[in-house]
């Protein structure tokens, strides 16, 4: 019975991870607008080129009549004439009036199959006065067609294709929390009972947790490079993450320094309890009270701000379970090594 259950959770976890990797990399990203050029416009007739990812304009009939492009200044809409439609871009002519409610313009592209595409702060009008858009320049809001896309991940500006990292970075931190929590409980049990097995469990948990913490740091650093432009920034969440990994490295150093001292179990447990409380303060308490670039701080970490849609959810939840199962499996292997080493040493 126990053996069968082991096969089920290990096999299930690996199957879920295989699904996550395949689905995560093969699912297309929804189309979205990337840039507008030129980004600075002047009043009068101007040509504006909007580029996109995901080929939103490669419909069966890419004629200009199927698309509508409007620019928004404040709450008012500005009309444009479409000149050319290509798979990756759309060129429009816009007559910019002398007076605009706002000098920054947002772009909307209404498409027949890909829904409505939006680019905030697409361009800037240098020489417009503040005022209403004259009636002859205005556009009425076009009819929206709901997007007819298959299973696809949502487009987010700046994040773009890197949204797939959600299936790696976030579950890895979840797995680290989970296994460090396990180590914390094991250390408390060690302090209560003094049994060696609890110490071996705590050591295995911390070692596995550090591995996942390092993976979380590495994937996070990649993501930061893509979205924020630097491998590392000074941010409460990032500081907390780095300090946490350093703290737990201290746990391993303490154990190594004590060697075969028989008090290692209790002292390591004391340190581990301290480290876990610091982890909770550093990663779950402090970042919520300070401003952070990192998403997911307004409630449940990792969920709300991503605005997870159903397609992402369908891969994200299996990823959480899959990485968690892999993490626990690694923990059990390390624990087995620890037990064998302990029994050999105490013979």
């Amino acid at each position, binding site marked *: 019975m126990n053996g069968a259950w082991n096969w089920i959770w290990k096999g299930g976890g690996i199957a879920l991870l295989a699904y996550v990797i395949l689905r995560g990399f093969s699912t297309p990203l929804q189309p979205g607008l990337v840039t507008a050029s030129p980004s600075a416009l002047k009043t009068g007739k101007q040509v504006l080129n909007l580029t996109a990812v995901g080929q939103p304009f490669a419909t069966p009939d890419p004629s200009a009549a199927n698309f509508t492009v409007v620019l928004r200044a404040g709450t008012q809409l500005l009309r444009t004439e479409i000149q050319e439609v290509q798979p990756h871009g759309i060129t429009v002519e816009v007559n910019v009036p002398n007076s605009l409610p706002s000098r920054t313009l947002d772009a909307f592209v209404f498409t027949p199959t890909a829904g409505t595409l939006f680019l905030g702060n697409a361009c800037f009008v240098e020489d417009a006065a503040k005022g209403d858009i004259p009636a002859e320049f205005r556009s009425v809001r076009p009819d929206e067609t709901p997007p007819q896309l298959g299973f696809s991940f949502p487009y987010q500006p700046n994040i773009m294709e890197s949204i797939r990292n959600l299936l790696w970075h976030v579950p890895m931190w979840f797995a680290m929390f989970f296994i460090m929590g396990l180590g914390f409980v094991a250390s408390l049990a060690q*302090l209560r009972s003094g049994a060696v097995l609890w110490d071996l469990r705590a050591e295995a948990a911390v070692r596995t947790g550090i591995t996942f913490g390092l993976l979380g740091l590495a994937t996070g650093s990649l993501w930061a490079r893509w979205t924020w432009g630097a491998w590392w920034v000074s941010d409460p969440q990032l*500081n*907390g993450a780095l*300090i946490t990994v*350093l*703290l737990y*490295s*201290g746990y391993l*150093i*303490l154990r190594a*320094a*004590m060697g075969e*001292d028989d*008090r290692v179990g*209790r*002292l390591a*447990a*004391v*340190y581990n*309890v*301290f480290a876990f*409380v*610091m982890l909770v*303060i*550093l990663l779950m308490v*402090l970042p919520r*009270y*300070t401003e952070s670039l990192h998403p997911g701080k307004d409630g449940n970490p990792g969920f709300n701000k991503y605005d997870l849609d159903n397609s992402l959810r369908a891969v994200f939840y299996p990823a959480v379970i899959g990485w968690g199962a892999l993490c626990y499996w690694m923990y059990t292997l390390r624990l087995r090594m620890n037990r064998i080493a302990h029994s050999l040493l105490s013979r």
Partner: protein
Amino acid sequence: MVGANHTLSTAWTVARLEWQLEWRQGHQLAAVGLFAIASVYVVFQAADQRTGAAAWTAMLWLVYLFSGFTAIGRLFDRERGDVRRYLQWTADPLGLILGKLFHSILTTTALTAVVLSAFILFLGWPQGMEGPGKPGLLVLAAWLGGFSMTTTLVFVSAVASQVRSGSGALGAVLGLPLLLPQLILATRLTRGALSDTPWAMLSEYPLFLAALSAGTATLACILFPYIWRA
């Protein structure tokens, strides 16, 4: 109630003993002061009196941090061997750690005064500041940061004292990552004190520092009996 009285009287005895030993032997605090002043003098030689607020803050906290290690790192050195065994039988562990904490906070207060005055004496006030700065807040930042550093260092040196070989170096290694959050908050507060940032925008840092110190001190008190028990 007998337990609480015993704890308090132990704490008082330990703190008074540390203080008396300090006066009679007098080398502990003197060594720390020497270390701090010599470090500030090195900084002065390297940086002259034209240091900007960022470098000033960085050097202040580096000097302060390593002076703290020197001062608190050997806190449990006396309680080894027979003394330790005797105290394990007679002294209440909670009282012992409270006494050590109290003594360490006094030490840190003295250290704050020494390091800050040495900085002002040799390096002067940082150059090129936008506003007049807030000397009162600077003192608060240094003392509260030092207080926070001390509560953690007491715990670390208690752990390190249990390791038979090389406890001094181990204390520094374990202490650095544990002290990073306090140092981040303290350096931000110091930078705030050396700028024209209004008080209201900085008010959360002292609160965080105080909360962090209270948390680490409580944890140290809860966990110390487990370290101490034979």
